[in-house]
């Protein structure tokens, strides 16, 4: 026999919207802050956007991060960023654009030479090297921007067609909320903005809409069944009715993302983490943000919801 996570609930979600809005404004501000940083060129952009070199090494024996850093500094790589993965004795070295100029294709070689010399007693394999010229970085950046804009337009158009305009706008707002929140949180965590993160954010945008659509569908259905009830009541009971499915659907995706974060390896760790955080925020926003926006928009007006089926 099945289990029910939540019995019949009766929570006043619309009534609590003020707290939710405050919380969301904080989250979104973090995101906008990191956007501004990006625009001013101060954000932590990955080398795929900024241009630069990254080298990942896999050592035979455990090594000291400080020693690696010192070795690079002594040999003229002052601005390198190092990240150590204890599992597998791995070291990721990234050097952003400025040092690339004029010597493209040579930075990785130099780094390898430094480590062969300084870590002569600890052999290493080259896991990967990546070198990206500034021009490619720019075109990847442009492509990412176009992808974000096109998919945003696509989703708004689809939702506006399927639902009332106010729902489409509110759903889009909730989606931007989710994306910006994750961006802001990543900024605070000091993670870099790279192609994989943008991919994660776009995926998240698509997925977070799923939850919102589930709630909207029910609101629309109930508005038809109970045309005389006040909007907040209809919304509240709709959200309560679909609460358990909203949580369960998120939970299954949450579970696989946990598996990805902990077992997927370092290459997609941040990507999976973004999805994981995003799913939590997306679930929150579909309950506490998406519907209350529609409520604020329409509370004074006579409710007339177009129903296309």
């Amino acid at each position, binding site marked *: 026999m099945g289990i029910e996570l939540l019995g019949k609930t009766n929570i006043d979600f619309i009534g609590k919207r003020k707290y939710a809005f405050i919380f969301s404004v904080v989250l979104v501000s973090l995101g906008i802050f990191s956007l501004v940083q990006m625009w001013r060129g101060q954000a932590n952009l990955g080398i795929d956007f900024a241009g630069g070199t990254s080298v990942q090494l896999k050592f035979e024996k455990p090594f000291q991060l400080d020693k690696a850093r010192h070795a690079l500094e002594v040999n003229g790589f002052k601005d390198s960023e190092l990240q150590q993965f204890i599992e597998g004795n791995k070291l990721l070295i990234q050097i952003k654009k400025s040092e690339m100029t004029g010597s493209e294709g040579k930075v990785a070689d130099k780094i390898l030479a430094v480590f062969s010399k300084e870590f002569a007693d600890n052999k290493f394999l080259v896991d990967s090297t990546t070198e990206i010229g500034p021009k490619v970085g720019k075109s990847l950046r442009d492509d990412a921007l176009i992808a974000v804009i096109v998919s945003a337009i696509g989703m708004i158009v689809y939702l506006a067609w399927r639902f009332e305009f106010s729902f489409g706008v509110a759903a889009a707002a909730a989606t931007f909320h989710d994306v910006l929140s994750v961006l802001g949180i990543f900024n605070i965590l000091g993670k870099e903005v790279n192609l994989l993160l943008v991919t994660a954010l776009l995926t998240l945008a698509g997925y977070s809409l799923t939850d919102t659509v589930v709630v909207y569908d029910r609101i629309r259905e109930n508005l038809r069944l109970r045309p005389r009830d006040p909007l907040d009541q209809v919304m509240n009971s709709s959200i309560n009715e679909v609460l358990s499915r909203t949580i369960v*659907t998120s939970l299954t995706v949450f579970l696989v993302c946990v598996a990805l974060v902990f077992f997927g390896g370092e290459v997609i760790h941040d990507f999976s983490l973004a999805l994981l955080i995003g799913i939590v925020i997306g679930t929150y926003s579909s309950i506490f943000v998406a519907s209350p926006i529609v409520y604020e928009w329409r509370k004074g007006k006579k409710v007339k919801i177009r129903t296309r089926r």
Partner: protein
Amino acid sequence: MWRSIQLRAGLIVAFLALSIIFLIPTLVDPLPKWWGKFLPMEKINLGLDLRGGMHLLLEVETQKAVESALDKYASEIKDALAKKDIPARQVERTPDGKISITLPDSKANDRFSQVRADQYGNLKVASFREQDGKFLYLLEMNPKEAKAIEESAIRQGLETIRNRVDQFGVAEPVIVPQGDKEILVQLPGIKEPQRAIELIGRTALLEFKLVDEENSLEDALKGNLPPGSEILYQKVAEKDTGVVTRRPYLLKKRALMTGDVLTDARMRIKSDFNEPYVSLDFDNRGARLFDQITAENVKKRLAIVLDNNVYSAPVIQERISGGKAQISGSFTPEEATDLAIVLRAGALPAPVKIIQNVTVGPSLGQDSIDKGIRAALIGAALVVVFMAVYYGLSGLIADWALFLNIVYLMGAMASMRATLTLPGIAGIILAIGMAVDSNVLMFERIREELRLGKTVRAAVDAGYDKALFTIIDSHVTTLITAIVLFQFGTGPIKGFAVTLSLGVIINLFSALIGTKVIFDWINLKKQLKTLSI
């Protein structure tokens, strides 16, 4: 009803069989011999990030090809004028891509105008002025001709690189043009990335130039470079210490012969010193030219220059006919082999610059595959257990749909020869998580209908009907992003978009048909009073 169940079950089984057939070449190695005769051989491709390998984006510096065409014009004009005894000073390419010509008097100018009209009508006069009795011309190339040169530089570059890679021996390389001036090169499973870069990125322009023995090298090094000459260097490695020094040479700028007359180049070993060198064979024209050059310049030194590096500058002892020469230097056997390859494949018409290089070693690739599979198994196990616990027997039906989903997805990928990347594996895992979403939506709806007191059969039907549009809506939004990512993403991200969008579409099928048919069948066989959901 029974008929409809049979039909749907048939569809499910047919797709399942198809998927498994498509998957077998990926999973079974080697295949039995009879397989290829009437069954598909397509495999799921592993992306470079999983397989290990090298991804290079090269920018062809096409303006250099235009410049060398201008250089060629300049030297031709110079020859033509010299032949007709027209005195001209400074026939040169200017830095902004024109040819400047200065004529000392009006007589020379008249005769030059004749030559220009007869032979070089395709060069336009960009400017002309008279100054102190001299006549100064600036000629420029027709933009159409320049464009054609640039395009052919890309085409030839592509062809040359393809030749080099073929001769180097890489399985399944990808070498395609991208954008206006770029060439994408993907070399899966390459073991010596550095060597491959040397091989691909080298211009390999071979030139034979005379050493300028009339002027002093010391003077030239101090800055008094005689016109028509240049300083190039030879790298000399000390045998014992390995210290590399650069030895300067003063050479005549003009190349007497270039590598385009080669028919073959091979690595050989000098038997007495056990030293590798590269032997060159010229074609008829080259052999004639070489014969003539050596005959005219006995006792002079002829430098062999590759990409503006001097390799050797032997004294011509006697006229050499027979169309053979050799390049020696202190090569390792690999260096000599690679040099022979690039000479055989020919020079790039314009130098290339590596603007993107992503190299993944085989260790990381295998590591990523292992971790990806582990994460997928753990993720799938978590979901399967959760569904079974939370929805009881109905949960098992959802798990069945999940199984269908994964097999269909892999089968579809194999049939399309899609490329699986690490983010692609993440896409599959994500699709696993989403696959049960549709079932969750339906099950919750069925629970609601049951609560209203409907019979099991009515509740199942109503649940499916009412959840249908929600399910479609929610899939479409994910599909939109997946398609956009496919359009704008590169490499690994494209792999993610492929698995995610396929996953979403297959998901719709397996959720709407794969599970419903089981419920219908159960309902038909027994009149259920209660449903484990």
